[in-house]
């Protein structure tokens, strides 16, 4: 490891404060970033991380405090200033133009030209160089970005930032939509950046990952910096403690539940977009985890089961009745509920209210003589908002205004509202804060204790190991292995997911909590 502490800080932020109306978003926050250092910025949603990064990029001006880059005062008046001083942002929501090529995206706004005529050769060379730099020379500059995988898109974003000769790179939840492999690649790239003296501010909810990649950390809570230090030798529990303030009991709350009779069974079900037929069964009160890499066919199985994709072979039986056809509403009637992995694109209608989103799949109770009663709708949803601890101004608030964790709770509230008895949850905790995660685990446990059956698809192994009764693994579209959770460990799941077979014997008791 490079001795980052010895070098003078590349960035110093001191006494930064910023208020929006009565809300203090940042309150006297100080922050230091060394040359070639990877510094994790940790905190719940709303803790002030994004405000702080907006101050750094120049998108907003702080009320108080000062910043220095390389010891020189830095007071950006807009995002353009930030870029010129070598500060680049890589946002959680990818900001690429899908119809343009890799080269066009990377060079966007910085095209090399002579009197308006594009110098394609120079640009191609530059793009090749920068792709080399991020260790992905195999990405073709002439491919439209829309055709790349999410991971490759992320690489393109990073390449774009590097082309800008950035010395400070801010990554906001860079791995939230990456597979394990792509994440590993990203860490590799980050290590490469360190060697070139680029400093990285790394924002992520995945604490294990933070621990792996960061040299130091700063925790924000309610707009204040509540702790910082070197990553090495700091326990995750301590960081969680700092994040949430109050005593944090358990990330994976244990809820007692008993497994009952089978309620869902797939028999050689093969959808048009599935690579292989799948057979599995799920019982009342059971939480069945589904592990596997992104793209291994888990989502396709759920979509086929739910009637969003067509089935070409086999069958699906829910409570003794076969369900078939590309008709999602018939699945909802049979008690299935699907939580989409794509919250923004599919899961929620951002411009509609919380009440509308929750009740959309079952409006019948609010209808009399063909007319809807919005008042009754809002009353019913107000109850769920309280029950699920959704932080919203009320049922009438637009879903798009809520934080990620609260949006996800709204999506879950819909399944509760439609009284689904078999819940198909696709990555329910992706990209949300740790407290919301813990709450979601608790409901999943509660639902199981009420006798609901839960199919829990996740790429985050600790949560599968933490709450599931049984875990099954997908590899290249096929189900390779299914065992009770006590017979799995993270390494075994990873092996099954990546090479398609699990070690027969469970290794020695090394599956301990972090």
């Amino acid at each position, binding site marked *: 490891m490079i001795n980052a502490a010895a070098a003078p800080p590349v960035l110093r932020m001191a006494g930064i404060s910023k208020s929006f109306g009565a809300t203090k978003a940042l309150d006297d926050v100080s922050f230091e970033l060394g040359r070639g250092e990877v510094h994790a910025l940790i905190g719940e949603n709303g803790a002030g991380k994004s405000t702080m990064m907006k101050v750094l990029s120049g998108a907003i001006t702080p009320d108080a405090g000062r910043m220095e880059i390389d010891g020189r005062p830095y007071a950006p008046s807009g995002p353009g200033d930030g870029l010129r001083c070598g500060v680049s942002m890589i946002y959680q929501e990818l900001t690429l133009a899908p119809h343009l090529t890799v080269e066009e995206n990377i060079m966007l706004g910085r095209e090399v030209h002579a009197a308006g005529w594009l110098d394609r050769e120079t640009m191609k060379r530059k793009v090749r160089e920068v792709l080399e730099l991020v260790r992905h020379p195999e990405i073709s500059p002439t491919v439209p970005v829309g055709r790349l995988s999410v991971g490759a898109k992320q690489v393109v974003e990073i390449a774009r930032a590097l082309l800008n000769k950035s010395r400070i790179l801010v990554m906001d939840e860079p791995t939230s939509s990456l597979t394990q492999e792509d994440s590993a690649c990203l860490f590799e790239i980050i290590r490469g950046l360190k060697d070139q003296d680029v400093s990285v501010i790394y924002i992520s909810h995945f604490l294990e990952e933070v621990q792996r990649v960061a040299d130091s950390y700063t925790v924000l809570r309610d707009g204040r910096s509540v702790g910082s230090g070197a990553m090495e030798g700091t326990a995750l529990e301590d960081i969680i403690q700092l994040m949430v303030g109050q005593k944090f009991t358990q990330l994976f709350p244990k809820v007692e539940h008993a497994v009952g009779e089978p309620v869902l069974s797939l028999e050689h079900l093969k959808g048009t977009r599935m690579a292989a037929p799948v057979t599995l069964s799920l019982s009342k009160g059971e939480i069945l985890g589904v592990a596997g890499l992104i793209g291994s066919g888990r989502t396709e199985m759920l979509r086929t089961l739910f009637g969003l994709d067509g089935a070409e072979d086999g069958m699906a039986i829910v409570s003794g009745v076969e369900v078939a056809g590309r008709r999602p509403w018939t699945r909802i009637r049979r008690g299935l509920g699907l939580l*989409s992995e794509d919250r923004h694109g599919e899961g929620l*209608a951002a411009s509609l209210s919380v009440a*509308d989103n929750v009740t959309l799949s079952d*409006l019948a109770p609010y209808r009399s003589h063909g007319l809807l009663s919005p008042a009754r709708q809002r009353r019913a949803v107000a109850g769920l908002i309280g029950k699920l601890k959704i932080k919203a101004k009320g049922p009438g608030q637009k879903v798009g205004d809520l934080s990620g964790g609260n949006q996800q709770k709204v999506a879950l509230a819909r399944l509760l509202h439609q009284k689904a008895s078999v819940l198909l949850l696709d990555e329910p905790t992706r990209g949300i804060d740790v407290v919301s995660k813990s709450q979601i685990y608790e409901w999943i446990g509660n639902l199981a204790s009420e006798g609901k059956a839960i199919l829990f698809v996740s790429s985050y192994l600790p949560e599968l190991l933490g709450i599931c009764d049984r875990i099954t693994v997908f590899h290249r579209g096929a189900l390779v292995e299914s065992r009770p959770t006590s017979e799995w460990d993270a390494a075994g799941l990873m092996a099954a997911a990546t090479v398609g077979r699990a070690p027969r014997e469970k290794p020695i008791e090394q599956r301990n909590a972090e």
Partner: protein
Amino acid sequence: MRRHSRSGMGRALNLFGPFIGLLLVIALFALIPGVQGRFLRAANFKSVATQSVIVALGALGMTLVIIAGGIDLSAASNIALASVITAYVVNAGAAPITALLLGVLTGGLVGLVNGGLVTRLRLVPFIVTMGMMGIARGAAKWIAGNQKIDAPMTWVNELMAKSPRPSWLLLAPGVWIVILFAVAMAVLLKYTVFGRHIFAVGSNEATARLCGIRTNRVKILVYAVSGLFCGLSGVMEFSRLTVGDPTVAVGLELDIIAAVVIGGGSLSGGEGSILGTMVGVLIMSFLRNGCTMMGWPNYIQEIIIGAIIIIAVALDHLRHRTA
């Protein structure tokens, strides 16, 4: 962490935006000394209302289509086709009510085909309805033998009479029909499951599908309803002209779409309201009426209305950023 003053302004714009426009237009002409007297007369308001009927009916259906994220470019051709069919049937000696119903149903059928093509062939609504625009116009000319169809006067022609009989109606029956259907559609959008589904499909079709909504059915119905309104609008066109004219209403689909957009409808779907649309229709009618009274040439009207559309959409944009 949002700035509340701005979001408050956004909400105010949202609620009153279209009304502000309407009041401005009325105030503008009411303040010009030359036309003031004639413009503010009840008789003038009556005639503006009557002149609005045809666009208003088309715009009622178009509002649903636009909220659902679609567009119906065939509306005006569909109106012409329905007017020709109505004239044809009256001329053939059938009962006026039969002619009226057949006119409306023709419009509905065209809408149904639009919806069917959009959903079954998964084509972009713009393309499907643009094709239908030509087909319906051509069919109208074909049926009419490329000329106007004369028809004997019946009670159908009184639907658009400026001085209605009985006189206690105050407004032409056609205006009352618009009001009736506007209320019905506003209720449909706000208080029915179908209405909610229309918004959901327009806001995020993938979410709607995930929620078990039969998105295709919603879309087909929306286009069919739009078609029915065009049919009714065509009957009103026949009533006004007393002949079936296949070349009538060319380009009117743009007025209809403009009315919806001025009234807050978003061409990317998920937003719009009947009240807003009706205000949009009135803004355009009052502008035309006022310009005519001023003796301004047609091209001035066109320029003003064009500018109004751009301003309305700009306001819409502002609303999106603040709200």
